[in-house]
């Protein structure tokens, strides 16, 4: 607003008029200031602007070893302050000669949704609002049109004999549309094929979410919460119990409000040789995971021998997530009977 001192003297301007204008201007300033009041509620939530260190943090790919160590330390400190747990925060790099592929047996999946919740538990997703990486679709037999899928099926028991079940999560595409559209390169594909997000770089424009044909990306519309207020009242330690302390920079460390997140094939586990959480929990062994560059791996065998399809192949995304079927009840086909005989012969040989 205009300051009285700098105003050039005007013939018709009286002192009183001046004062009046000053008062009006002051109310205007007060109104602007009052409009900003909600910012006071922000605690330490106002993002990167509150700390120079955060504001100046480099993109993941530009951080050298020491800078990364410093960043990890800072993030651990923040997690400790906020959630009172001591995280084992690491930055796991992709392994050489490894390209991860997922295969899911649609003949086996029973739609129990255990993978959905095991994933939430492993990857520290927000519980309120609820955020899940895996969606299980129940589809009537006789179609794989996912528009006919039911996300909200509820039955006393699964599987239903008239339906089959199709879990969908990030397909870690070899030609990922989400990576292409990101204006700030906050998401990219690593050498092992996993598409990752630098949660400290994402500006939250949600263009990637619009670009993903598998609806695999999730946005933190609020600050993630790990327990409702009622749950906290019942058990003050519940957040410490729920959070998985084993975290990595690119996967399951707690996210902040306003950034995207997605399935990373549990890279903090898989990059040290372990299985992803969704696979471990699967009660029927419908999920298969491994290194597609290794000819002996389970997934390579599946890709070679099974009937495979990928979802929405027409979008050209080249997914690293394959669906396959078993031959169901192979009855009285001469070729297969021979094989049974062959196997038993092999057994006989082994025994002899």
């Amino acid at each position, binding site marked *: 607003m*205009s300051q009285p001192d700098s105003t050039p003297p005007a013939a018709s301007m009286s002192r009183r008029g001046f004062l009046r204008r000053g008062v009006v201007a002051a109310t205007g300033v007060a109104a602007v200031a009052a409009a900003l009041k909600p910012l006071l509620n922000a605690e330490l939530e106002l993002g990167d602007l509150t700390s120079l260190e955060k504001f100046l943090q480099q993109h993941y790919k530009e951080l050298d070893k020491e800078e990364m160590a410093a960043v990890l330390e800072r993030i651990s400190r923040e997690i400790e302050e906020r959630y009172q747990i001591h995280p084992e925060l690491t930055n796991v790099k992709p392994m050489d000669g490894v390209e991860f592929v997922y295969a899911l047996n649609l003949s086996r999946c029973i739609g129990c949704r255990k993978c959905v919740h095991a994933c939430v538990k492993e990857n520290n997703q927000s519980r309120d609002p609820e955020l899940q990486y895996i969606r299980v679709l129940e589809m009537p037999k006789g179609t794989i*049109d996912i528009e006919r899928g039911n996300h909200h099926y509820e039955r006393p028991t699964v599987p239903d004999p008239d339906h089959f079940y199709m879990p969908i999560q990030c397909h870690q595409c070899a030609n990922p549309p989400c990576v292409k559209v990101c*204006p700030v390169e906050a998401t990219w594909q690593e050498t092992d094929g996993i598409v990752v997000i630098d949660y400290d770089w994402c*500006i939250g424009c949600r263009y990637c979410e619009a670009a993903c044909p598998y609806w695999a990306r999730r946005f933190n519309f609020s600050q993630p919460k790990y327990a409702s207020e009622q749950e906290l009242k019942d058990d003050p330690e519940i957040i410490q119990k729920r959070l998985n302390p084993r975290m990595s920079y690119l996967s399951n460390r707690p996210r902040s409000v306003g950034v995207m997140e997605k399935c990373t094939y549990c890279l903090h586990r898989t990059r040290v040789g372990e299985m992803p959480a969704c696979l471990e929990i699967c009660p029927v062994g419908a999920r298969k995971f491994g290194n597609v560059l290794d000819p002996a791996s389970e997934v390579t065998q599946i890709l070679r021998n099974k009937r495979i399809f990928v979802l*929405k192949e027409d979008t050209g995304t080249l997914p690293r997530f394959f669906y396959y079927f078993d031959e169901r009840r192979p009855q009285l086909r001469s070729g297969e009977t021979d094989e049974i005989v062959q196997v038993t012969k092999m057994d006989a040989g082994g025994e002899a």
Partner: protein
Amino acid sequence: MRDYLTFLYRCFRISFVGGWRYHLWMLCLTIIALLGLNAYCKQLVDGLATTGMTDHVSWGLYIANFTFLVGMAAAAVMLVIPVYIYRNKDLHDLVIFGELLAVATIIMCLLFVTVDLGRPDRFSHLLRRFNFPLSMLTWDVIVLNGYLLLNLHITGYLIYCDYRRKEPNKTFFVIPFVFVAIVWAISIHTVTAFLYVGLGARPFWNSAIIAPRFLASAFSAGPAFNILTLQVIGRFTSYNIPRSALLLLRQIVLVALTINMFLLISELFTEFYAGKTHIASTRYLYFGLLGHNALVPWIWASIVLNSLALIILYLPVTRSLRLLNIACVFLIVGIWIEKGMGLIVPAFIPSPLGEIVEYTPTINEILVCLGIWAFGLLLYTIFVRVTIPVLSGRLTYDQPFEIATQD
């Protein structure tokens, strides 16, 4: 330099001077803008959960308004082309108002994009790592800001020359920029349309007709808005708006709207006649899907309004301004629905996995939008308020400020 600062200061001062109508208008806009600011602060603190957006419908009213306003901004070119290419005399003095409108709308566009960001505090990341040319969003950042600068330059230079009572050096400082701006205006549309068209995941957008329709609808809504604002200027200021100029704009609106309606028919025919499976979103928009039909009344209202506008414009009687104005209002509202809600929201419904979650904007979100609209109109009013005394020679460097205020 000193002169320039004085000029800016005078511009600033004069924007507070006016009759009671002017003050009341500005007061209303300020109040709405402040309510919007307050709502945005709440959004900053609580996150985008304060909007009606979800992981299913991840873009809503903000991006819808952004899309509509990009069209409005580019429509300035529809005043520029007749003047600079066809040497039209009527519009010559009015071009600047179109360009000022472009400046105001581009600023609104940028604000709409900013409020849509989850982490606006990381805006600097755009400068530090820019995914150009792969991401269409980076193209949009470039073309929008470029268009803003171009128009700021052209209008600023012309107004400042008038203020200095100097003949503007058109060959060097205006004409080249104007021609760049003409191409640029078309590019901001095209790029914004490509933003959506390039997404193979969304069959509703992934269609070649989106970009042409974008241009056609913008070139009808933009000049229509100019017809209205020019009349307001003519009514409330001493500035003379020739009737012939308005009728020329009417001609442009008529042609653009006809093309837009033709493209709409082509689009609908292609979608529905073949009976493909990927038309769930289109079906949702026009007829509702499995009992969900939140957008159906809106889109039909839009089609009815646009058709009415078209019919009115085709009647020769509408050379009377009253009917023309009604047609313009119909058309602007119709296009706003069509380019906003009708283009952005249905692409997300059903989700790529076939789930239907509808979108209803929250009050907070609507307040933010209204705030930005009010702020944009406030800016445009100020621009006009400054420009008119300068153009009519009452606000110049060699006259005392008070002459300018005698309106």
